[in-house]
């Protein structure tokens, strides 16, 4: 989570490894999580971040402790990139008392409020005002924290987009709105939802510095974000970043996603963000296959341990619940 000092051109091994580790950890979490879902261990909604890993990875690498994030219904990736403990994440999905929300929240509400992660949200678009609010709180407290809301193409057609980004603008908040444009809202193509698919223009129209980036390129996202964060800390926020990307599967675990054209899917899979992060490590810093595998195995092991931990954890008891109800 520590901000990186150096600029483009020669990315350090440290940075590239960090990007790959994060992207890969998300990939493992989602792929293995889907298996747990299919085994019936996870219920409710599960929206995988597969294919979009580059965004959370690049964005969070440019943030530091004390910053805040707010997320979407597709929030596992943001949570991981933010540095969450995979154990407590899996435990939450398995509705265990050791989960981040003690099993009260689940996938759609996973949060780590103590670390400045305001959490996933079941209401599309709701993370924007919440994030702007966190930025406002930090401005009032007088610190230099930056707040990021991860948002979506779907949320960009919702009123909260305009209202809250406009508030961030008139108040010059240290706020970055990251619009993950994966070009779908469930099965609805972005072209059906708006006439202009370049969503960053909506920021420009209200005087907000706005950029577009390839969301599958975690390094590009990182550099753009690093610049945005610096500007914010100088009081030149807010900034909007539209990151184009594509899902690797349907909207949620049970959506086969048949409506996604095979050739478009293939196009994006060729530009897989995890592969690209791995390749960068191999090509730019020269890691060999064994080194890569060591990293991958470590991450896989971390997930397996998390499953063990979660299975061994207990659920909230009815007595504990009743106490909570009384106090609510």
């Amino acid at each position, binding site marked *: 989570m520590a901000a990186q000092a150096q600029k483009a051109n020669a990315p350090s091994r440290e940075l590239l490894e960090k990007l790959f580790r994060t992207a890969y950890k998300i990939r493992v979490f989602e792929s293995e999580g889907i298996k747990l879902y299919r085994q019936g261990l996870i219920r409710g909604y599960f929206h995988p971040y597969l294919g979009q890993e580059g965004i959370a990875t690049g964005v969070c690498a440019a943030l530091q402790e004390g910053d805040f994030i707010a997320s979407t219904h597709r929030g596992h990736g943001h949570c991981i990139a933010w540095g969450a403990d995979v154990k407590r994440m899996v435990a939450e999905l398995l*509705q265990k008392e050791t989960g981040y929300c003690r099993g009260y929240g689940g996938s759609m*509400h996973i949060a780590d409020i103590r670390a400045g992660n305001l959490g996933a949200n079941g209401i599309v678009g709701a993370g924007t005002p919440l994030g702007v609010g966190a930025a406002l709180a930090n401005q009032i407290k007088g610190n230099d924290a930056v707040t990021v809301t991860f948002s979506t193409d779907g949320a960009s*057609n919702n009123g909260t987009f305009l209202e809250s980004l406009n508030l961030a603008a008139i108040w010059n908040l240290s706020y970055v709105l990251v619009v993950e444009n994966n070009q779908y*809202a469930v099965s609805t193509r972005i072209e059906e939802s*708006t006439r202009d698919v370049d969503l960053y223009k909506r920021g420009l129209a209200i005087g907000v510095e706005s950029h577009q980036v390839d969301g599958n390129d975690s390094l590009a996202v990182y550099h753009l974000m690093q610049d945005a964060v610096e500007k914010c800390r100088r009081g030149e926020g807010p900034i909007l970043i539209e990151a184009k990307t594509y899902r690797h599967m349907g909207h949620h675990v049970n959506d086969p996603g048949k409506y996604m054209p095979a050739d478009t899917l293939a196009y994006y899979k060729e530009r897989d963000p995890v592969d690209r992060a791995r390749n960068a490590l191999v090509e730019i810093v020269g890691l060999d296959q064994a080194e890569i595998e060591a990293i991958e195995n470590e991450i896989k092991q971390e997930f397996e341990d998390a499953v063990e931990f979660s299975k061994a954890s207990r659920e909230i008891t*009815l007595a504990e619940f009743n106490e909570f*109800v009384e106090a609510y």
Partner: protein
Amino acid sequence: MAREIMYRDALREAIDEEMERDSTVFIIGEGIAERGGSYKVTEGLLSKYGPKRVRDTPIAEAGMIGVGVGAAIAGARPIVEILYIDFAMLGMDMIVNQAAKFRLMTGGDGRVPFVMRTQGGTGGGVAAQHSQSLEALFYHIPGLKVVMPSTPADAKGLLKYALRQPDPVMFLEHKHLYMTKGLVPDGEHVIEFGKGDIKRPGKDVTLIAWSNMIPRTLEAAERLAAEGIDAEVIDPRTLVPLDKDMILGSVAKTNRAVIVQEAVRRGGVASDIASIIQEEAFYQLDAPIEIVAGLNIPIPFNLELEKASVPQVDDIVLAVRRTLHSKPLAQAAE
């Protein structure tokens, strides 16, 4: 004659028949056209009625509801599908301040034949923002009709009526009911608002419930029957207008009432029905009216806690027993 079909199919039949009958009926919602809706209620309508009358929308609930209200004012018959009743909160201004008030504000000239279809209730781990039972919010706003069908036949008949009457209707389905089956009469089947239905006649106690609490209450009634308690189960079907006569008639007979609602206890519709019964049938009551309702808490993700948050069959049975063991007033007053 009648056919046994699913609740979701009954809804589709109603929409289909009314779209056929009235060319100004149209439907908009998220994923309702090409995909046929998250609960398959609108499957096949796009190919039958075309993209002018069956439209997908962006994620813009306030806009969708507002546009529906405007279309209704201007003389069309919109159905706006909101995926979860929880999301209707985004369009509350359009419901509360526009749809419900337009008739009054125009001195009676303006009417708003607008139907919002949505679904609520707990559904197995979809957590706090996708599990609410919010009918009480609409119930409190004068000008809105509130409909909560519990069976396929009621769903069909009430939705057809909704599409023929002139006022805004909150048509509230339940996520657990879509795949339940029931007999639906063949041919034209329309059910007027304001007429409750006795789902089970009985003489010992009046049970009032709606939506997904009906199957649970009927199950409770069967268990009570085994104990020799003969419960009458009333489904008002429409909460606004409410069939007070049916409720008061039943209480006059049984002298005891239990109201079952999935929504949280505090400020729910059950409280209002209780207040009406105690006001109008005070001298007929032999025991306090019992309310079996959701806990005053958002719905937790954890499935055991979710279950503990809303009425189960056991809770209903226990409440009825409590009511019957209460001493009659005449004794108490002595």
